[in-house]
């Protein structure tokens, strides 16, 4: 399953993130600073182009490869729009549009309209919108959809953030001339679906970091004369945390690889629903094990948990996707239920 490309990407992202995503880096990003060094390392290594086809100058990797990067973003809490740029690169590739050089691309979502090649409307809570040079959108009208690439610099941008202090900007477009417009045979549901996949993987990575931090802390923290890791009460709690982390990782991998096999909604919807359930359990245990220190800004646990609490509501909450799964299951009927699980298609 793990190809050579996967291994190279994995090594490369681990190296870059462990060198650059320091606590200082995350703290300054929370204050609004753009982590230029980190971003240029990412771009120099072509990580943002993992899903751009080779004939358009990209890596031509798989979704499984992309999933490795998404998970790393969550595990390190990397404060950059790498996931969004990977997805943007994928969308541009579908439209045969070349990924513009030296650009930072975000995904636009909201009430947007196209008139004579000009985009108008508001993209809501756009991830890293204030740092982005371009936006990609899918505009649907009368059952016809267009993939659009627009510049962002001239537009008016709010300074909203999510609770993890990542920018989530409302961007108003007023007759902004599109750079590319391509007719496509998919609609904006695709953004919701791959957005859910992207966040599910990031969440799986974020959950891993909760486990790692909690295990480390439990082994260091001494109470009653021994590390709290030696108490069965703590061991049993951390074991539960670990089972949900393991499940989330598998759910995310299954979703990524299902995109490589036709992109049925079953695996992606399952992943978002499954990791959402895991967050409730894992964040609670991780904070409990850390005690008061984990509740301070000084300690880094919250860099993970605040992201998890934000990401779980984006691109459809667990409940949203569970409803989609459930609706399809009941409309397919009980006799088709098990076959849909085994075929991975609903």
């Amino acid at each position, binding site marked *: 399953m793990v190809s050579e490309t996967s291994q190279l990407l994995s090594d490369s992202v681990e190296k870059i993130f462990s060198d650059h995503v320091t606590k200082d880096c995350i703290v300054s990003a929370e204050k609004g600073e753009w982590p230029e060094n980190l971003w240029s390392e990412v771009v120099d290594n072509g990580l943002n182009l993992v899903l751009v086809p080779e004939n358009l100058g990209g890596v031509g990797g798989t979704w499984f490869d992309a999933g490795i990067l998404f998970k790393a973003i969550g595990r390190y809490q990397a404060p950059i729009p790498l996931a969004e740029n990977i997805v943007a690169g994928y969308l541009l590739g579908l439209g045969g549009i070349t990924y513009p050089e030296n650009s930072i691309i975000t995904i636009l979502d909201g009430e947007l309209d196209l008139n004579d090649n000009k985009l108008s409307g508001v993209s809501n809570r756009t991830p890293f919108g204030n740092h982005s040079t371009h936006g990609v959108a899918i505009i649907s009208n009368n059952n016809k959809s267009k993939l659009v690439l627009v510049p962002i610099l001239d537009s008016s941008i709010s300074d909203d953030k999510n609770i993890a202090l990542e920018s989530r900007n409302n961007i108003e477009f007023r007759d902004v001339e599109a750079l590319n417009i391509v007719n496509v045979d998919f609609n904006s549901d695709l953004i919701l679906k791959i957005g859910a996949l992207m966040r599910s993987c990031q969440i799986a990575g974020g959950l891993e970091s909760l486990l790692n931090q909690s295990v480390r802390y439990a082994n260091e923290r001494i109470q009653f004369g021994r590390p709290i890791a030696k108490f*069965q009460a703590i061991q049993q709690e951390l074991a539960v945390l670990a089972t949900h982390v393991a499940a989330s990782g598998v759910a995310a991998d299954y979703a990524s690889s299902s995109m490589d096999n036709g992109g049925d909604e079953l695996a992606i919807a399952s992943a978002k629903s499954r990791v959402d359930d895991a967050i409730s359990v894992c964040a609670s245990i991780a904070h409990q094990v850390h005690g008061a220190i984990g509740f301070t800004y000084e300690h880094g646990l919250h860099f993970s948990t605040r992201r998890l609490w934000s990401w779980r509501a984006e691109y459809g909450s667990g409940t949203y996707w569970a409803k989609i799964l459930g609706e399809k299951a009941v409309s397919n009927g009980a006799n088709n239920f098990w076959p849909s699980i085994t075929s991975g298609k609903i």
Partner: protein
Amino acid sequence: MNTPFNFRLTKFPNEAEILRHEVREFLSDALKDIPKETRAETWYGADENFSRKVGQKGWIGLNWPKEYGGAGRSSMERYVILEEMLTAGAPVGAHWISDRQSGPLIIRYGSEKHQKELLPGILKGESYFCIGMSEPDSGSDLAALRTKAEKKGNIYLVNGTKLWTSGAHRCQYMIALFKTSQEEDRHGGFSQFIVDLSLPGITIRPIIDLAGRHHFNEVVFEDVEVPEDMLIGTEGNGWNQVTAELALERSGPERYLSSYILLQELVNEFSNKNDDEGVVEIGRQMSHLTTLRQMSVSVAGMLDQGENPALEASVVKDLGAVFEQELPNIAHRLMGLEPDSNGTDFQRYLAILTQISPSFSLRGGTREILRGIIARGLGLR
């Protein structure tokens, strides 16, 4: 730092998907006359006639090497048979243990004589094994077991009691762990034996469970003379042999599919209702089922590669038990119907599964023991 788990996605080969259709076809015929309650019991349900039919199909020992009479096919193909049988509610209990662990143990540690004499019956679905581990004072603390096997000439003299032995009353053999010597190491001095349950001095007494069923037993050994050549593996190596069995025992589809029928019935019930709460809950449970299946299949893949996924197997079993224990509660919450052994199909399923669900996190290693193993894997102990 990454997690200590080695789960990786494993795909079913094409042959497995072809086999899946064969199994579904076979079951649609073979299960016609099996009552609902038996179906809800899945691998607690035993039907020797059904087991013989499965043996005739060549579906027992599917992944055993051909030289031992198996079909030499992959664990992935075997997995397909198991999951199809469980979700269809096939009464697989009679041959389940022999196929899953007794046969593989005999192949791995048994003498040529054991293999020649015992494997053919297992493969035919006619010869059934039970597991003799727990004792009155040895549950989770397996190393505390006391049943002794003393070497006397060419026999071992066995005295003691095994408890909670599932299916002993319908099995010909028990693979039992006995104490053969006292060692300083509390895991030392154990040996495994293949015990013919018809030997003089063995008494099998039923223990009726809370649902009124006779499933497990107390098996008493009084001066039982077990021939020395029925020791399996190496004397004193019993603990290691037993531990190796556990990965086989803890990760299969039976560890999360026990209440599957309720989920399928909920899909049926909510097909005609306009009820968002039910639909969302069905979707959530699908996400858990889908994920558990990928995890469990991943362990099957690791076993095929000759790895030792003991830690991953514990994760599957713990999460799986939580899932299958929760389904009767969810079914109750959504439907509000009384579990009733004489009620509708749904109520009958609910009646049996609500009552047997406490056992899901006890059998094959308790929740606490599994979580202890996981904690050790995390480096906490």
